[in-house]
């Protein structure tokens, strides 16, 4: 027998019923978590090829660390965004019992911003990783190839920057009461 509810619930009620602070906390987690996954993945991909290629062509070692640095930058974007979002998260007093519309907005904004930054950094990290791997092998074969493939990597790392820019704008107006 189905229980008769006092009031019919809809998905909208469920989503709005979740405290905005938890949305915001998740946003921060995505921002840093997914960015680090992307950066780690990228460094793993590039590093494996770099280590192997440097066995027969040791001269490529120093120059190709740039690929690793590009992947690392992705993690740094994630940390910066996470800190910005955390400041917004902590901006409110957190003491009022009622949840205002401004709080809801802040929660959603910070969540979306974190997801934006996290996912775009994930993709960017993997992209730079794959390109960096190709760059190491090409440099080992022919030194003049390094600079050309670096340009491809620069375009790839711009993707992470796009994510950060949009993320900052998304969360600009969000602040807890």
């Amino acid at each position: 027998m189905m229980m008769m509810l006092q009031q019919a619930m809809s998905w909208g009620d469920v989503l709005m019923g979740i405290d905005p602070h938890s949305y915001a906390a998740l946003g921060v987690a995505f921002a840093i978590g997914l960015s680090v996954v992307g950066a780690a993945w990228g460094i793993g991909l590039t590093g494996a090829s770099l280590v192997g290629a440097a066995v027969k062509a040791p001269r490529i070692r120093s120059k190709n660390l740039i690929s690793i640095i590009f992947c690392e930058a992705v993690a740094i974007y994630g940390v910066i965004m996470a800190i910005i979002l955390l400041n917004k998260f902590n901006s409110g007093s957190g003491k009022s019992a009622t949840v205002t519309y401004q709080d809801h907005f802040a929660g959603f904004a910070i969540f979306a911003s974190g997801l934006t930054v996290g996912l775009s950094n994930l993709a960017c990290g993997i992209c730079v990783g794959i390109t960096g791997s190709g760059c190491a092998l090409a440099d080992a074969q022919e030194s003049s190839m390094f600079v050309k493939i670096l340009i491809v990597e620069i375009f790839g790392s711009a993707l992470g920057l796009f994510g950060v820019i949009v993320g900052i704008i998304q969360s600009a107006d969000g602040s807890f009461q």
Partner: protein
Amino acid sequence: MGLTGDLWTFNVGCGGLEAIVHGLANGLLRQEDYHNITQCDSLEDMKLHLAGTDYGQFLQNEATLSSKVITERALDRLVNDFKWLRANAPWPLGEFLDYITYEYMIANVLKLISGARSGKGTLELLQKTHPLGQFEGIGALTAAQNIDDLYDLVLGDSPIGKFFQRTDRTDFDEFSMEYIRSLLHKNYLEHFYKFCEEIGGDTWMVMKDLLEFEADRFVVTLTRNTYGVKELQKDERKKLFPEVGQLVTVHEDLANIDDDDALKDKLRPFPDLYALVQDLSMDDPANSLENKFMEKSVQLHKDSLQRQFHYGSFFSLVKLRELEVNNLMWIAECIIQNHRHRINEYVNIFEA
């Protein structure tokens, strides 16, 4: 998506090894290296020039030089590199590398048997086996008296046991040996093809082309070698063709032909193969078609080395290095026998 992983996961398992393979492939001798060693007057000169390439001091412990010594040391270098790669390879790369060695194991088994029949000593025969094709128990093969013995004695357990199938031919005479050699090669190609298909991904894309070409080359060569051979029935001839390759659709017809014009006719619908046979005539030197096939396979191997994130580069490296060792042997022989006019008949790997 295959077992090897895709673009974004291949490096997790085999990234370092693949990069080392590319590094080794960069060390293949170039046009100017070949130019230098073909200009040499003696093997000492050749040793000097090779010291400046990736070969380095590979002959430094040799008191006397001969083409046999140079070939063996060059092959040792390939074998050491291969064994290192095999030792560090995770699954399924390890199994893939094992498949590459099976071809050499088959050649060794047949060499041992035919050598034993003509009465050579076991130790001498074992020294002549290809080092990549060593496996446990290979020495016991020399004791086999006929093919059933062979199956029972050793091949049940050895890694190449699965390529053998019982046939009506149980003697070790020359015709049967050739028949068995072809049968083994056919089974090997089919098994390897199926294995690469299971692996999937980019490896399958690359190995498909390489193995299909090998199979087609085998079919054409076998057809040409058995024109009018009476002991080989037409349906038996067809059974020796692997079920792999572009020519599968015309195997029926190819099994029945007995001359080059019919061959060219049958190959007309396959433009890249037709291009290799169209200038063929019965009075060509015996190996001109062989050379054309070799050049095409070199092209395919170089193409596979241009791609990343697949196992085909391991296969191509072994084949190209082996070709290089054969080239060095040819050049060394020409230098010793002073056949200057034939010294440039090695197979070119890189142009200019």
